């Protein structure tokens, strides 16, 4: 029986695997005609379509009703999938996830740059709306952030699984699961904010625990609450590892936020000292300096967004690899 080596969407080589396993992966949508494969006798990798022995399997995959529609999950979701994920021991490979940040970017540089940029621009528009429209703006940001990020992570996941996806599909969240993604983003953010009022720590727990909720909705088409619960139950068992992984993956953003907090705090403490620790004078000074305070806010938001953009190029690979570790099938 022939053995094959494949190149995954993360650019890594997997195998050797038997032709039966390869057929299974084709049936599951994990490989497609353009996936790079090498037989034991081959010197170089070729497109899977060039292997006549898999033509039938690829043809079957392409049959309407079997292949997933554009923007849909490549992972087949059976009725017991949720139970199986909960039953198994979650395994978060810390080093592999951190390395995947670079390897995914290196193997799919053009795709990642374009997809990240599109998602970032959409996010920037939402942030601008939240800054300009009082009361309604932040609500709009909460509503649409989950939809955009859900679509973004889904196309990156499909790329990691070796599927052919275009960066323009990052907005597929609006087509595939708009109400559920909207509810996931909105409910998880608002409940975490409510939890923030209870001495911050519950909010930190929930932020980490619900981290994969939007990805689960986009990838598995789960009802939003099921996705939030599944994410919480699985992540809770590796909560500390996940917390550290998020800290490391988003380190530049985190450092900037701490710096910004100190800088803003210092600005207001200086004002407080200048006004002789008098609330009335402080309010008057703040009113007179409203324009400069606004400029300061816009400036720090823009710098924060630029750092977030650069950070996103790396951390996307980390997040989707961590998701595959926890919720993906235990195969390459």
């Amino acid at each position, binding site marked *: 029986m022939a053995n094959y080596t494949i190149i995954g969407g993360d650019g890594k080589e997997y195998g050797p695997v038997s032709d039966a396993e390869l057929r299974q992966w084709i049936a599951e949508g994990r490989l497609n005609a353009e996936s790079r494969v090498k037989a034991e006798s081959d010197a170089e990798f070729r497109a899977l379509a060039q292997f006549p022995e898999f033509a039938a399997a690829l043809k079957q995959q392409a049959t309407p009703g079997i292949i997933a529609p554009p923007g849909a999950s490549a992972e087949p979701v059976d009725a017991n999938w*949720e*139970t199986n994920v*909960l039953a198994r021991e979650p395994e978060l490979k810390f080093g592999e996830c951190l390395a995947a940040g670079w390897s995914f970017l290196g193997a799919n540089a053009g795709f990642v740059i374009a997809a990240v940029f599109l998602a970032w621009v959409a996010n920037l528009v939402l942030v601008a709306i939240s800054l300009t429209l009082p*009361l309604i703006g932040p609500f709009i940001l909460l509503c649409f952030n989950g939809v955009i990020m859900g679509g973004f992570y889904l196309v990156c996941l499909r790329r990691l699984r070796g599927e052919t996806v275009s960066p323009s599909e990052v907005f597929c969240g609006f087509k595939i699961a708009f*109400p559920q993604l909207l*509810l996931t983003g*909105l*409910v998880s953010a*608002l*409940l975490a904010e*409510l939890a923030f009022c209870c001495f911050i720590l519950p909010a930190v727990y929930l932020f980490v625990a619900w981290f994969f909720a939007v990805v689960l909705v986009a990838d598995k088409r789960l*009802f*939003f*609450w*099921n996705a*939030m*619960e599944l994410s919480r*139950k699985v992540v*809770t*068992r590796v909560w500390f590892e996940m917390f550290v992984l998020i800290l490391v993956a988003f380190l530049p953003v985190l450092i900037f936020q701490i710096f910004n907090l100190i800088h803003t705090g210092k600005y207001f403490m200086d004002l407080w000292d200048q006004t002789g620790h008098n*609330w*009335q004078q*402080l*309010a008057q000074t703040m009113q007179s300096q409203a324009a400069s305070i606004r400029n300061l806010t816009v400036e720090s938001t823009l710098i924060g967004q630029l750092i977030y953009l650069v950070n996103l190029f790396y951390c996307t690979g980390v997040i989707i690899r961590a998701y595959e570790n926890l919720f993906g099938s235990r195969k390459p």
Partner: protein
Amino acid sequence: MRTSSAPESRDDPGRQKARGYLATNLAVPGLGSLVAGRKVGVLQMILYLSGFVITMVFGIRFVEWSLAHWSEYHGPDADPITALVAMWQHVRWPFLGVAMCVLAWLWSFITSRSLLAETKAKSAAH
């Protein structure tokens, strides 16, 4: 430590959905009822959003007024009764807003409870 819910609750999608609506109503009163197909959710949401806007708008005005009149009502010669009367004139609207939010939240909570009871009765009947 228990890390997952009981198997029967996991197997009952109606119950899980009802819990989702409850969580949504907790975050945005009325939205969960609306998503669950209860038209009363519109009224709950209107009540909540109106209360929220009133709280924010008049709350900010109250803070501005308090800062502007701080010394007037907190000085050694200030009359506490006059201060309280003046404060009530400005604080009653934010209070009304908060009361509307709480009412919408309680109303949507009752709807969520009835949704949960309905799914429980349905699953018991099956």
